[in-house]
């Protein structure tokens, strides 16, 4: 009887597109026709972060006549909502999150309107290095509104304390430096790897694979990490060994990406996070209320095999769902939201009143330039250099089956970390998943 607590999370997410399509056939789904109207309408924008300051939104309303209703939904729930609304052909927002990893899937399914119809694509491409990550089946699914990429952060003070004068540029140096920090007792557990079975573990592995000089999948979606001398295999071995040799805290088996950044790196428990998030310096490590290591952490050009390596990008995008009521108005909002001036403002170029909480970095080079010119970006110079050379995880775009692949990546890497399977078996299991998915 008490199972009547309906709505135990997720379980309930057992959704049927067909129930929907059958019903839709019977009663036409109920999605209202989209309107090209802009002035005088109210659009809903659903993203996973806090909204821009109200004063900025008011200014947008004043200049365009479009009122913005902002809806904050956590990332996981938001992906669920996007799928539920799209499969049942129902409206839930006029503009919403397009994650780089879902571009393939969402593009193929046609869940988003082609952005190239609403914006000047070449102009955007020239200013947004990561725009390519949002193309699928020849269409632009969304536009990156920030430029998040993976970057190595180090606690310089701890490195110095362990007697390390020159910072590492190769994986070998980096690893021996960490061992030195451990052996000198500066930190018992100098490295943070978030081994919880979640998306953050997958992206950490992609960056580490990049550092070992290879890619995860080739252009056809074929796995590249089965051979023991492949980069992905070496990366996984390195990560699991770091945990086994005690460089990584044992408790990290259950620590997620943001948890590790907040409770380990920001509290001075660890000395480095190899695949950290760009922007964490300004939004987390340098903020006294959330960090006890202000002034000690820096971005480090990510070590590679024989020198520094490229940084893997994981930008957040925004697009117009196919069920939007006011696509034209949504497009106007997206143009405004991703303008160079606003991006610089959101990131703090012009004082705290204009900051959008939790905003990473401008996705436009011109926005980044405005920001660094003001000198208000912590570690801005390094980030700008890295952004220019950052590259997507999948050069040909994320495959349609990416979510399933990533699930195999993080569950198997996690299992290898717990010791319930070998790295070799984990790599084989992930490869088997990729092979069967790409051949479908």
């Amino acid at each position, binding site marked *: *009887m*008490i*199972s*009547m*607590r309906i709505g*135990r*999370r*997720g*379980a309930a*997410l*057992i*959704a*049927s*597109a*067909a*129930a929907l*399509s*059958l*019903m839709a056939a019977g009663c036409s789904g109920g999605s209202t026709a989209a309107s090209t109207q802009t002035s005088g309408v109210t659009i809903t924008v659903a993203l996973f972060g806090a909204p821009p300051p109200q004063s900025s939104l008011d200014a947008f309303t004043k200049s365009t006549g479009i009122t913005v209703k902002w809806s904050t939904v956590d990332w996981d729930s938001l*992906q*669920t909502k996007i*799928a*539920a609304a799209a*499969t049942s052909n129902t409206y839930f927002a006029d503009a919403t999150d397009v994650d780089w990893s879902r571009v393939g*899937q969402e593009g*193929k*399914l046609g869940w988003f309107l082609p952005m190239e119809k609403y914006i000047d694509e070449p102009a955007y491409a020239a200013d947004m290095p990561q725009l390519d990550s949002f193309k699928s089946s020849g269409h632009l699914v969304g536009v990156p509104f920030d430029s998040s990429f993976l970057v190595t952060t180090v606690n310089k003070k701890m490195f110095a304390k362990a007697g390390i004068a020159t910072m590492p540029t190769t994986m070998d140096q980096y690893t021996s430096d960490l061992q030195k920090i451990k052996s000198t007792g500066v930190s018992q557990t100098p490295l943070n790897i978030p*081994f*919880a*079975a*979640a998306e953050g573990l997958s992206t950490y592995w992609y960056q580490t694979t990049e550092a070992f000089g290879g890619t995860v999948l080739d252009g056809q979606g074929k796995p590249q990490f089965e051979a023991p001398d492949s980069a992905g295999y070496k990366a996984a071995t390195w990560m699991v060994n770091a945990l086994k040799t005690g460089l990584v*805290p*044992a*408790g990290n*088996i*259950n620590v*997620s990406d943001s948890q590790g950044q907040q*409770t*380990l790196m920001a509290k001075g*428990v660890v000395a480095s996070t190899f695949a950290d998030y760009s922007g964490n310096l300004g939004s987390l490590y340098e903020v006294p209320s959330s960090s006890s290591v202000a002034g000690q952490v820096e971005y480090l050009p990510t070590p590679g095999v024989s020198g520094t390596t490229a940084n893997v990008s994981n930008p957040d995008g925004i697009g117009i769902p196919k069920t939007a009521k006011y696509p034209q108005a949504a497009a106007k909002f997206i143009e405004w939201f991703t303008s160079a001036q606003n991006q610089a403002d959101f990131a703090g170029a012009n004082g705290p009143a204009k900051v959008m909480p939790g905003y990473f970095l401008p996705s436009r080079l011109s926005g980044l330039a405005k920001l660094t010119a003001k000198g208000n970006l912590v570690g801005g110079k390094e980030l700008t250099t890295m952004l220019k050379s950052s590259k997507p995880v999948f050069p040909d775009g994320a495959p*349609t*089956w990416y*979510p*399933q692949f990533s*699930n195999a990546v*993080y*569950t198997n890497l*996690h*299992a290898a970390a*717990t010791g*319930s399977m070998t790295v070799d078996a984990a790599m084989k*299991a992930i490869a088997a998943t990729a092979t069967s998915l790409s051949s*479908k």
Partner: protein
Amino acid sequence: MTISIRSRRRPTVGSGGGELGRRRRRIDVLPYVLVTPLTLFIVGLALIPAGFTVVEAFFRIQPLNPPDAFNGLENFRQLFSNTAVKASMGNTAIYVVIGVVLSTVFAIAMAVTLQKKFAGRSVLIAILILPWALPGVVEGIVWGSIWDSNSGLLNSVLSSLHLIDHYMVFLGQHQLLTILAIELVQVWQIAPLSTLLILAALQNIPNDLYEAANLDGSSAWSTFRRITLPLARPGVTIAMVQAIIATLNVFDQPYILNGAASTGASLTMQTYFISFQNLNFGEGYALSLLITAATLIASLIVLKFVYRPVEF
């Protein structure tokens, strides 16, 4: 879900007294008027959606692989060849065993504690039902800070008592330990109801049985074994059935406390991944149908082996 066990009050025609003022030879419309709102709700918002679910379990419904088509038992075949699903079946079986055993044992202990009247008993009952009344979402937050490996309560207490020399990892490392820790969180929520159900059964035991046992010089333990436990069977049965339903459908606790890791992933979590991550809705439905069937079967097994009618 209600299990009506040989109910002395079966909802059959004319039960619960007579009927009132029914005129003959004319259709009596009043009862129909009275049940119309209920009927609308149940048919429109429960039966019709449930019907969809049952039907769709036998269709291929993959937006990435159109068109939708009838495919018989293919969804079920796919599920049984899926390693993640098979691992979750094992995990879920462990959840059910640990959850049902622990919640029943705790509930019997707590019900026996409350069996006799004493000063403050009603306050204690109020405190007892607290965990049952709280939103499930919050449980994960509350218990997360108990199991935490960096600053959790349990680690702190154990090391203060010098039982461990360094902080331990309770979640995610060992399958059994992980499942035990996660399931304890669920037991925390379901044990209060089990206790109430068993307590109600204990209240029905005539006191003279205990007095007779006392005169025979029976020890407390043997009285408990010979009188209390056998006569509490009806309550224990219902308590176990509700525990089975809850544990077979466990989702929030493993998802919040352990992520998608195979050390603790449950079957309902797989329905979520299959439906919303892999966009394979037909299989998602098929799996939830299997979980429903498993729930019914497990409940019937408990009924058969635990339940005995009690006559006083």
